[in-house]
């Protein structure tokens, strides 16, 4: 799946999905993962870390480059997916379910509505990315 209809998106190719209450899962889109090529290293935050909306929450590195990953919502990190961190190849198989990266407890859940929906992200990929 290149785009998950249930997720919302950032121009920098992160996605967020509502899980329950104020908890959102966050990951990187299949498009971004494909563009990166072989992913060889990731850094994810510890649980409890506070992050700003659009602030860097981690780093993903391919052979050729290191890229920051940006938070679609501000809040507190509740969990990081260490299994994916230690086996980044998993991202290629499924970017949106098993490939989630962090769970954030959002301080302003309404930020979710300000993100691009699937159709808008699709259009963004076709025109700008």
């Amino acid at each position: 799946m290149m785009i998950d209809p249930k997720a919302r998106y950032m121009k920098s190719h992160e996605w967020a999905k509502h899980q329950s209450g104020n908890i959102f899962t966050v990951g990187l889109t299949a498009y971004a993962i494909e563009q990166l090529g072989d992913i060889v290293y990731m850094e994810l935050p510890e649980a409890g870390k506070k992050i700003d909306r659009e602030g860097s929450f981690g780093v993903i590195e391919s052979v050729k480059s290191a890229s920051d990953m940006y938070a679609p919502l501000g809040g507190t990190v509740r969990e990081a997916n260490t299994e994916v961190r230690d086996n980044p190849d998993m991202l290629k198989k499924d970017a949106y379910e098993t490939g989630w990266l962090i769970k954030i407890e959002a301080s302003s859940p309404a930020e979710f509505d300000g993100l691009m929906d699937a159709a808008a992200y699709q259009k963004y990929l076709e025109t700008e990315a």
Partner: protein
Amino acid sequence: MRQTPFYDRHSALGARIVDFAGWQMPIQYPQGIVAEHLTTRRHAGLFDVSHMGRFCITGKGAARFLRYVLTNDCDQLAIGQAQYTVLANENGGAMDDAFLYRPTADKFLLVVNASNKDKDWAHLQTHVSGFSDAVLEDVSETAAMLALQGPQSEAILRSLVTSGALPQARRNAVGSVTVGSTEVCVARTGYTGEPVCFEVFIPAQGALAVWDKLIEAGASPVGLGARDTLRLEAGLPLYGHELGIGKDGREIPVYAIPQAAFAISFDDPNRKFIGRPLLEKQAQARQRYKAGDFSDTGVLPKVVRQMRLLDKGIARDGAAVYYEGRQVGGVTSGTMVPCWDYTKDGDRIELRDTHAQRAVGLCLVNADVPVGVRIEVEIREKKLNAQTVVRNLENRSGPVTAAVL
């Protein structure tokens, strides 16, 4: 943007194409950089290197000209041999590094970096006029160039030879054979650290047929991405990183790279060549360092060392390097490279089917930073443990290469 004769092949294979020094080149194929690196170490990788600059030097004055503009001595180059060499400048820095091939008695072929080709050409042009009977010709477009590297490359190439014999199994040997109906020049050279390695010069009109035959015979296409990880793992310098202008804006002295010892010849005391006075001083500094004397590091303050990260992370170009608490230089090239797991039996090794990865690099550090010591690399404001190493890759009988762990 220019395309090599193999551009359509790269596209058909689904390569990701990037602009590189004015050329549209494959950075990777769908297999990816990691798989392409590993297949080169185990089987055979096929690289389109037709973007590299190729100059032909002929005429009675050819050797005299080359002995002046290149650091190595082509008079020591037997017919059917090649040598690593440098186009030095008067400051003892490198305009470029290059390989000089002598396929026949009266012809030299100089292969230079694509990114420096125009600069090199202009430089050589200004000097060639001072040498009567030396003819300098740009033959980059008349012949394609492929590299075939890895343990299986000899069997693959031999299976395609219709007449003639591959050059003797000695590093840098050059010869000519016919592949199908195309006569090609073959050299046992390369940029991967593989002991079994070939570079093939093919007349442009026969190039596609040779590519197709090599692929059919089992060679795997490898892009520029893995070309870089392979040379890095082997500790080979890349102009713009370990040679040329350094991160501090200063010229990197040629003797900063350990390979300078094979690229520069002072054997003939009467040979004048560009940069010689300063290069000799650098060579003397190297000798003093070898004896443990670091009292005068003026002409060669920093040297290139191979390194390996001990902590998790990746050291990249530009990261600061610390030794005993003070900054001693920076990383010049670095990334994560894959390596086959293997089992060891004396000098023989058996590659397994699994692979690991390690973060390796090259760094330009103060000349007195030894090999085999703990250093730290600053990555995103954190200092990670690393060490300087003799090598990250070694030759084993097979012949194959193996990761030094």
